[in-house]
């Protein structure tokens, strides 16, 4: 079937003036529907879908022959917009969220159930019409029907057995084998979109940094870059490098945690113990160098809040030098332990077709053959001109997701050494000017779990009119449902940990 390319569709349109770097185009419902159809045929990646008060829905996408991602906007007519989800499944949950938050109906959607709204807010469409709503039983939710002989259901959550975030998993199993997993999320919905609207940049930055605490650096980085794109701010070189240092420290700390936790879920506690120590050492070095273990609120529009001292630099280098050989030894152990590999190899396989369709970022995509990394493909300072290898594997199982992390830790350590041994001098922050007019900016940053997107509109007075944060988890959570199918229930923790999706980052 002949396919219209998104690039040729967009080439006929003129972008909105306020949009910087990433062009934004306004399209009618027919144009919107065509783009949805093309996305569904594999003509591009959906990277974000959100609404704005006043009757607009925005869609961010990447496509071949487009230098930068592009944003499409369509108007809401009679509280409706054409569903993209009817053509392109990755849009379904995003559209359910739009309906819950704004009250705009995705016309023709294959799934009309609520998503974030559990009937507990006391208000319907909190970012739209804000009509009062009666409280309803939060447990009342129509899970998809599963029929067949010998099936039983296992409800898990929202409060889980470990020290983890809340969410509900409904397993339908046949004996030990999972026939279907259905997720129900939204428990930690904090109304972040609502808090960001109208906030000043400082307040908003602190909220965005807490969208998901484990990737606070990447979130702050993406927010800062989106503001800088909107207001045409160039960040000093030293600040850009320090941002990279923080981002890679965050990546290795999280990867250590995940590698250990995955092995722990296969009850191989030795690697967990070692990785726990590595993670702790890295966080202590972060604390020493930047004054916060998770480096929250350190990256702000205009640069970074805190410069690093020579002692801080030395402490990080020493920590990495101490860890590197010990990590190599632990990895050899992972590779040489058949009883552990028996649990991770061929477990929780995600097909390449799925990660491509969902544009799944991070280790979930890269372990299944999707060769994408924002640091390389939407390059931003300080990664410009930097040669590093993006690990891409094909197996798509838990083991492949472990190996992607291992290789990324190695690549990050070498980046960190390179930067820290040759830190450029100079200031670490510049002032954030007022544009005096409405501006829009967007940025994508590679967090440890995948790409984070921030889009925002800054008002003339410098406050935020709207800010949208899309975590990588949106396009990874649905694939976890696919990964567990046909596996035994006992392998779910392994699959889940190998994804390590964010609940808070998704629920917002």
């Amino acid at each position, binding site marked *: 079937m002949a396919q219209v390319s998104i690039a040729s569709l967009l080439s006929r349109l003129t972008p909105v003036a306020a949009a910087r770097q990433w062009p934004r185009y306004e399209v009618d419902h027919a144009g919107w529907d065509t783009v949805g159809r093309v996305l569904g045929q594999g003509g591009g990646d959906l990277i974000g879908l959100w609404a704005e008060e006043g009757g607009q829905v925005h869609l961010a996408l990447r496509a071949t022959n487009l230098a930068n991602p592009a944003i499409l906007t369509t108007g809401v007519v009679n509280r409706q917009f054409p569903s993209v989800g009817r053509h392109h499944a990755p849009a379904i949950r995003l559209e359910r969220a739009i309906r819950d938050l704004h009250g705009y109906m995705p016309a023709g959607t294959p799934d009309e159930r609520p998503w974030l709204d559990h009937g507990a807010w006391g208000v319907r469409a909190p970012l739209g019409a804000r009509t009062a709503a009666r409280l309803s039983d939060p447990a009342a939710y129509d899970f998809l029907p599963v029929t067949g002989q010998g099936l039983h259901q296992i409800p898990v959550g929202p409060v889980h057995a470990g020290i983890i975030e809340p969410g509900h998993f409904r397993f339908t199993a046949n004996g030990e084998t999972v026939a279907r997993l259905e997720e129900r999320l939204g428990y930690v919905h*904090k109304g972040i979109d609502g808090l960001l609207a109208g906030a000043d940049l400082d307040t908003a930055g602190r909220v965005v940094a807490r969208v998901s605490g484990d990737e606070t650096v990447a979130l702050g980085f993406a927010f800062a870059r989106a503001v800088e794109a909107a207001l045409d701010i160039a960040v000093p070189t030293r600040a850009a490098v320090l941002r990279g240092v923080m981002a890679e420290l965050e990546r290795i700390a999280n990867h250590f945690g995940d590698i250990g936790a995955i092995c722990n879920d296969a009850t191989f506690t030795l690697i967990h113990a070692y990785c726990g120590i590595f993670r702790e050492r890295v966080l202590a070095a972060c604390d020493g160098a930047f004054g916060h273990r*998770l480096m929250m609120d350190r990256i702000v529009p205009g640069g970074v809040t805190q410069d690093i001292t020579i002692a801080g630099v030395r402490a990080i280098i020493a920590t990495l030098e101490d860890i590197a050989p010990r990590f190599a030894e632990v990895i050899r152990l992972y590779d040489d332990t058949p009883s552990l590999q028996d649990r991770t190899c061929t477990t929780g396989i995600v097909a390449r077709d799925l990660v491509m369709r969902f544009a799944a970022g991070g280790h979930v995509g890269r372990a299944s053959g999707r060769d994408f990394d924002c640091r390389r493909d939407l390059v931003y300072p300080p990664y410009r001109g930097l040669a590093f290898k993006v690990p891409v594997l094909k197996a798509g199982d838990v083991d492949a997701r472990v190996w992607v992390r291992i290789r990324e830790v190695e690549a990050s350590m070498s980046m960190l050494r390179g930067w820290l041994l040759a830190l450029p001098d100079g200031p670490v922050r510049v002032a954030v000017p007022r544009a005096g007019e409405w501006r829009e900016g967007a940025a994508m940053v590679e967090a440890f779990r995948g790409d984070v997107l921030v889009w925002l509109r800054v008002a003339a007075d410098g406050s935020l009119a709207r800010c949208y944060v899309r975590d990588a988890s949106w396009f990874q959570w649905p694939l976890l449902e696919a990964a567990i199918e046909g596996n035994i229930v006992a392998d779910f923790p392994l699959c889940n940990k190998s994804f390590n999706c964010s609940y808070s980052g998704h629920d917002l």
Partner: protein
Amino acid sequence: MRTLLLKSLFASPVTIAPPPPADAALAEVGRMLEQRARRLFGRSLTIREVDAGSCNGCELEIHALNNAVYDVERFGIRFAASPRHADVLLVTGPVTRNMKVALERTYAATPDPKWVVAAGDCAAGCGVFAGSYAVVGAVDEVIPVDLHIAGCPPRPIDLMKGLIALLDKATART
């Protein structure tokens, strides 16, 4: 694996020295225990962690309590999978409206006597999420709280000091 195990045998422990209980925490739990019956737990506390809406930053640091460096199990503090086995609920986050019922049910499922520790600035006062339509409020607006541990997120050492203070008071013989 043998070489790794052998090396660990001869290596010195990475575990840090136990910190003293936090003064502020001692004062707070002291007040709380005047109002409640003391009971001997045999110097052990079992904790059920409940994320009632956090950004997961607090969870990361609570996790760290179990690593080899902090190793809270040496004080008799351990984390349980079920509230039925818990003496303490360690609650994080501003309580979201979507988690309110789950938190109330978890509290109801925890046998008496029980204590509630609100960990992190969000649990104490909603942090940056105050005022949202989706947030009920701080933890003590939903269930009674006996101890607050400040921080965004609290460092593991501060969590540890708070929990040790609670342990000292809760397990003191009357």
